[in-house]
């Protein structure tokens, strides 16, 4: 125990020398993303890339957000797409029935999701380990049945939203920048938590919950807080994604596969690290896009997602960043912890 605790404490205490290469790398990366749409303005024909990038930003935001409960705290939730659905439907209801554009309402949707997350978490987090995982799957199926039978939001048929009223060259711009904002925000929150006392407590919980409790970590409060926070950006992403698709149905948001992909991305990159989910999302989106273009988004995609997860778990359970770190091969600009 002392070993673990001193490790954690030293991790937190020893503020590393300012990592210049990391700062430069992140700045350049964000600047490049901010400037990229200029290509569309001056060159054109970039809609596919805009789409891929905004999809990537969304997944970075989701994976980084999932990492807070699944990585730092060690509670694996296979049902985080419930948050995605809650955010999406909150946005759809506000838009379709109250006329508030998701561009304005998405923070509200995120907050609603987070609050429901506190509520759900205060029930499901009474269990740990396998029972918690079970409850996360049951939650997906439960919410799916509820949404499918709630006629107000279209039931099984789903709900359609109006298109964004912008010329086709620019229609992706607001989504692009807002998703970028979510990605940056989610990673920033992840970074802040990782370096805080709260984050230290979460990591203590993931190492050994009973010892953490004994050492004075308010484990219950921390867990529920982490669970709710891990829905904040996923909820916002859901609201924007629903608007982007202009159509929401329970199947789109609440297939088991959707939640499985959140988990796979994060584990692939390295759960419990700040840069892991970012790298994981990039690698996963590229691989998935390649796969879908070659074999189609069919049943094979489900099998391949599962197979990828099996391989990662068997051979690189620490993920890309975690494995590199273990071997001391992690380039400095990717060490965001």
């Amino acid at each position, binding site marked *: 125990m002392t070993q673990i605790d001193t490790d954690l404490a030293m991790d937190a205490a020893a503020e590393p020398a300012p990592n210049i290469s990391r700062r430069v790398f992140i700045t350049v990366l964000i600047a490049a993303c901010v400037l990229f749409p200029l290509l569309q303005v001056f060159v054109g024909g970039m809609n596919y890339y805009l789409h891929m990038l905004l999809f990537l930003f969304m997944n970075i935001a989701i994976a980084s957000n999932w990492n807070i409960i699944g990585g730092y705290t*060690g509670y*694996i939730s*296979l049902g985080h797409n419930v948050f995605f659905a809650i955010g999406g439907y909150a946005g759809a209801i506000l838009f379709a029935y109250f006329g508030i554009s998701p561009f304005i309402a998405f923070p509200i949707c995120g907050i609603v999701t987070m609050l429901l997350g506190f509520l759900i978490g205060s*029930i*499901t987090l*009474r*269990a*740990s*380990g*396998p*029972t918690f*995982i*079970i*409850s996360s*799957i*049951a*939650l997906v*199926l*439960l919410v799916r*049945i*509820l949404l*499918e*039978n709630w006629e107000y939001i279209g039931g099984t048929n789903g709900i359609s939203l109006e298109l964004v009223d912008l010329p086709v060259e620019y229609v992706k711009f607001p989504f692009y920048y807002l998703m970028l904002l979510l990605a940056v925000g989610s990673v920033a929150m992840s970074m802040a938590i990782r370096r805080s006392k709260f984050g230290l407590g979460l990591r203590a919980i993931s190492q050994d919950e009973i010892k953490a409790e004994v050492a004075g970590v308010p484990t219950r409060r921390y867990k529920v807080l982490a669970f709710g926070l891990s829905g904040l950006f996923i909820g916002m992403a859901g609201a924007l994604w629903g608007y982007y698709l202009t159509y929401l149905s329970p199947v789109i948001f609440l297939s*088991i*596969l959707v939640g*499985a992909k959140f*988990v796979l991305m994060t*584990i692939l990159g390295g759960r419990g690290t700040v840069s892991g989910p970012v790298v994981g999302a990039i690698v996963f989106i590229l691989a998935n896009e390649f796969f879908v273009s070659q074999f189609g988004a*069919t*049943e*094979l*995609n*489900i*099998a*391949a*997602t*599962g*197979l990828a*997860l*099996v391989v990662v*778990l*068997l051979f690189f*359970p620490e993920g890309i960043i975690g494995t590199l770190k273990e071997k001391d091969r992690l380039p400095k600009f990717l060490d965001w912890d």
Partner: protein
Amino acid sequence: MVQNIQIIILGLALGGVYALMASGLTLIFGVMGIVNLSHSAFMIVGAFIAFYAFTLFGIDPILSIVITMPAMFLLGIVVYKLIFARSFADPAKRSVMVLMTFALALVIEGTLGFFFSNIYRSTSPSYASDAVIVGPFFLPLGQLYAMAMSIVILLLLWAYLKYTWTGYAIRATMHNRTAAEVVGVNVDRISMLVFGIGMALAGASGSALSFVFSFYPSKHWEFVAILLSLVVLGGMGSLLGALIGALSLSVVAAFVSSNYGPTWSPVTFYLALFIILLVRPQGLLGKKSGL
């Protein structure tokens, strides 16, 4: 009154089948400490075997357990050797074992869906749609046979665990893995055997499932969530608990189904799960520690 008893009968008949389905799951959890999320996916594999045995060779789905059980036993041993044996030895990887079974379920679902497509199937032996009328009660034969079959298999399982040396070793391992190892039980071998037995039970459940329910590859999530709910209710790793959970929840679900429509019957199980977590997280017969 008559109607209520009728509902209870139907609930118990389904409960018997659920108990058979849950037995393999809870056995594997008891011995290996792994929640096997792929359990129902393997049940669907069993159901497909039974389906093709019936449509191609006319083998009765109840008799098809002579095929499904050994086939699934062997498949279980292979899966165990390939995936669980090596990861099991490494304690660091044991924590991600549940995720592994989740991934496995996706692989099975996708593969089955690719080859057989997600259409509804079920075997239709003559008794599947038949019923007997006893007094005022209506007893669907298919569910009755499935329940009888489940009871026989569960009794055999119970006798095996109770009266054979291997069964004794399995129970010892379930009770306390470390202590069992200390007194000379080869727990790795036992784990492999139990994984095989669990899969064989999944195969038998598949045979039963094939004529009681209609099935398609992605339906296993619904099954696994139902099974896990009743296993959590009974207490993880307790066979008796699983049986009690199965029977009681199925009866409640039957009432919900008859009053509010069949859509809401699975909701009973999921809601029950959350209520149990609130009230008694270790379940009815579960040990307090370890979860």
